[in-house]
């Protein structure tokens, strides 16, 4: 372990980063003392990741990045944990070899200590990245980033893809690890920053618009963007009820579904009973692997259950002929998790929408996009834009049931708010039935009037959104506890 030294600090002066054609980061100044966690917060495209990459020496940049007054040595001084751990690890190499490689390159570090530090069994060194769960992979990536005891750890959106309970575990470990080093926590989630960071720097269009201790930034924000971010995060308006109801009804009885992989079988749904009335907005929440997405696939009449029935407006969808079932699917809008992958990469936005129903520019306008975007291809869309194109496609179907899988995950709070406003507005204006899968309880409160909690394939709780705080089931309590924004004493 490197000795704790109060004089050590990461100093960034006049940092600029250019991408071909334009400047993305405009003269950034930052000082982070050792042992502190600085959260770099900002909407997508504000330059957070480029700043972090520049500090790590992975990106050509202007200005100076100093550690204790001397230039940062690439690799040696900065450990970098990436957003998508499973993609940043080599799938053909064990975790142990990843660790050993770093140790050999820097001639220091203890692989098993690094794993233990992040709550992993040292025996996991023999595992391959794809054998780990999302949370384990993320912790392994952090262990690899810190095995050679760098003075600075950059955690770039390390918990964006994780459910709140796993996120809590991972960030608690990062915080414990920060005693010995400077941590730069990159996130678009102010709740994360408020709970785990000592200082917050808000980044907007490549400039720091606000920088201060967490408590001060949260209680006394000085910049408009900070206020907007805080407001969006605190948005607890209840969804408005539709004036007239046109939506469809869904009924699920004793639904069972087994997922068969090459070697193992998982019971993803274990006897689910669920009634969704026309015009209702229901949020299905739960940890990763609780069966949420599988349930959505069954509700969409896409996956045939291994047991039980799915009724749509009183008719069993798996007892009807294929043609009628396809008609049911046409009346069901389905918004996928990671919507960009749900568009044919060869099609333009116009073709993507026209496949669901007649294309009109009004569809894009309704979701807040420029109709000029119709000729773009999916690869050129940002996360928020993809999400809105997915909603526009679902609208082109003129559905009476809208199913959305994690519609807000991976989006910054401002975009999340726009997407949720869009969904609630749709229900209010058109009387659709909405079923939304999410691990974000805040989004559930904002867009749903009923919450169904799944745990290991069972529906363990089913209650109005307003009663969420009084929920008794341990699985629900655990989810609630993990997202409660509370300040840890400095």
């Amino acid at each position: 372990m490197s000795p704790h030294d109060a004089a050590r600090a990461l100093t960034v002066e006049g940092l600029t980063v250019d991408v071909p054609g334009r400047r993305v980061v405009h003269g950034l100044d930052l000082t982070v003392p050792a042992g502190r966690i600085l959260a770099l917060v900002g909407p997508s495209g504000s330059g957070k990741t480029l700043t972090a990459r520049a500090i790590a020496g992975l990106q050509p940049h202007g200005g100076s990045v100093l550690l204790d007054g001397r230039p940062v040595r690439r690799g040696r001084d900065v450990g970098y944990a990436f957003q998508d751990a499973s993609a940043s690890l080599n799938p053909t190499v064990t975790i142990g070899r990843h660790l050993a490689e770093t140790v050999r390159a820097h001639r220091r570090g203890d692989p098993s200590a690094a794993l233990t530090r992040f709550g992993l069994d040292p025996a996991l060194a023999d595992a391959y990245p794809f054998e780990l769960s999302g949370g384990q992979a993320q912790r392994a990536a952090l262990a690899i980033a810190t095995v050679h005891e760098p003075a600075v750890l950059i955690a770039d959106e390390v918990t964006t893809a994780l459910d709140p309970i796993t996120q809590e575990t991972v960030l608690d470990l990062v915080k414990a690890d920060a005693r010995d080093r400077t941590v730069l926590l990159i996130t678009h989630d102010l709740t994360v920053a408020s709970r785990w960071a000592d200082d917050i720097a808000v980044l907007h269009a490549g400039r720091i618009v606000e920088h201060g201790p967490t408590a001060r930034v949260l209680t006394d924000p000085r910049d408009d963007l900070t206020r907007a971010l805080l407001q969006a995060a605190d948005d607890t308006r209840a969804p408005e009820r539709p004036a007239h109801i046109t939506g469809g009804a869904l009924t699920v009885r004793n639904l069972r579904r087994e997922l068969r992989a090459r070697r193992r079988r998982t019971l993803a749904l274990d006897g689910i009973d669920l009634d969704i009335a026309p015009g209702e907005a229901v949020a299905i929440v739960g940890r990763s692997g609780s069966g949420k997405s599988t349930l959505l696939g069954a509700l969409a009449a896409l996956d045939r259950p291994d047991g039980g029935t799915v009724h749509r407006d009183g008719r069993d969808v798996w007892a009807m002929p294929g043609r009628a079932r396809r008609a049911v699917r046409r009346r069901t809008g389905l918004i996928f998790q990671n919507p960009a992958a749900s568009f044919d990469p060869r099609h333009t936005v116009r073709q993507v929408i026209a496949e669901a129903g007649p294309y009109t520019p009004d569809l894009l306008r309704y979701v807040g996009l420029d109709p000029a975007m119709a000729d773009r291809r999916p690869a050129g869309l940002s996360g928020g834009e993809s999400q809105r194109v997915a909603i526009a496609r679902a609208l082109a179907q003129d559905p009476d049931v809208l199913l959305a899988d994690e519609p807000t995950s991976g989006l910054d709070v401002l975009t999340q708010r726009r997407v949720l406003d869009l969904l609630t507005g749709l229900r209010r204006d058109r009387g659709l039935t909405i079923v939304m899968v999410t691990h974000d309880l805040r989004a559930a409160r904002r867009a749903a009037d009923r919450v169904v909690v799944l745990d290991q394939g069972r529906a363990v709780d089913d209650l109005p959104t307003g009663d969420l705080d009084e929920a008794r089931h341990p699985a629900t309590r655990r989810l609630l506890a993990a997202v409660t924004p509370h300040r840890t004493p400095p």
Partner: protein
Amino acid sequence: MRSDPLRAKGPRRPGGLLAVRLRPRRPALVTAVAVLAVLGTLAVLAPLFTSLDPVATDTSATSLPPGSAGHPLGTDLLGRDLWARMLYGARTSLLVGLTAAAITVVLGMLAGGLAAVAPRWLDGLIARTADVLLALPLLVIVLALAAVAGPSLGLVVVAIAVTSWMPVALIVRAELRSRRERRHVRAAYALGLSRWQVMWRHLLPGALPPVASVAAFEVGHAILTESTLSFLGLGVPPNRPSWGNLLTEAQAHLLTGEWYTVAIPAAAVVVTIIAVNVVAGAVSGPSEGGTW
């Protein structure tokens, strides 16, 4: 308003395999089409471009270099005019090359597409048949076919198609199988599309770019295979010129200074392959910016 798939198709540009996106501002494509058109015209109207007989020998004008009077591309050892032989050879080579490649690709796509959607036993049957045929030497199969049908130009085309559809089929099968698992294919099913619509709009178009590359290769392969078969007396009469024949005959001259007897027909084959590659790439639509 409910959407139905027929109406949704209406005013749009044609989708799927019909989506030949011939944009005006694509110089490479325009050039490639022009090259193929010129080659085709030269072949069809060969007698208009030369007065010489491609098989007539002229002992007074043997082994002339290109640029000689009356013989723009020179003559071979027997005094046959190379320009005339190239023109008439184009007839055989383009006919065999393009037809055989087209049949190969269509046959391969049908077999591969069928294997990808068929029940397991049929998939296995098609895949194993392809494996077995890949393992057998081409000539054995062609000799067997010739014994039954007798030598002809048609036999050459059939023989080439029968012995080269396997790579196309295996590529198409593998592409379709991997694409089936893609999220956007699931999204297409979720929109209420039938299996055929998904196949036609999302799976096959995605599998086209690698097939387009193979198609261009197959043209060259067919042109050369034709000369091999003709040499064995299984195709066109050996004295009838084709680019393949010209190349086979010219092999011996490679080191004797008469390089042009090899270079000219070889250049013609290469130009054809490149032109077909460009056109096939355009027909298969924009790539995903991926591997091909």
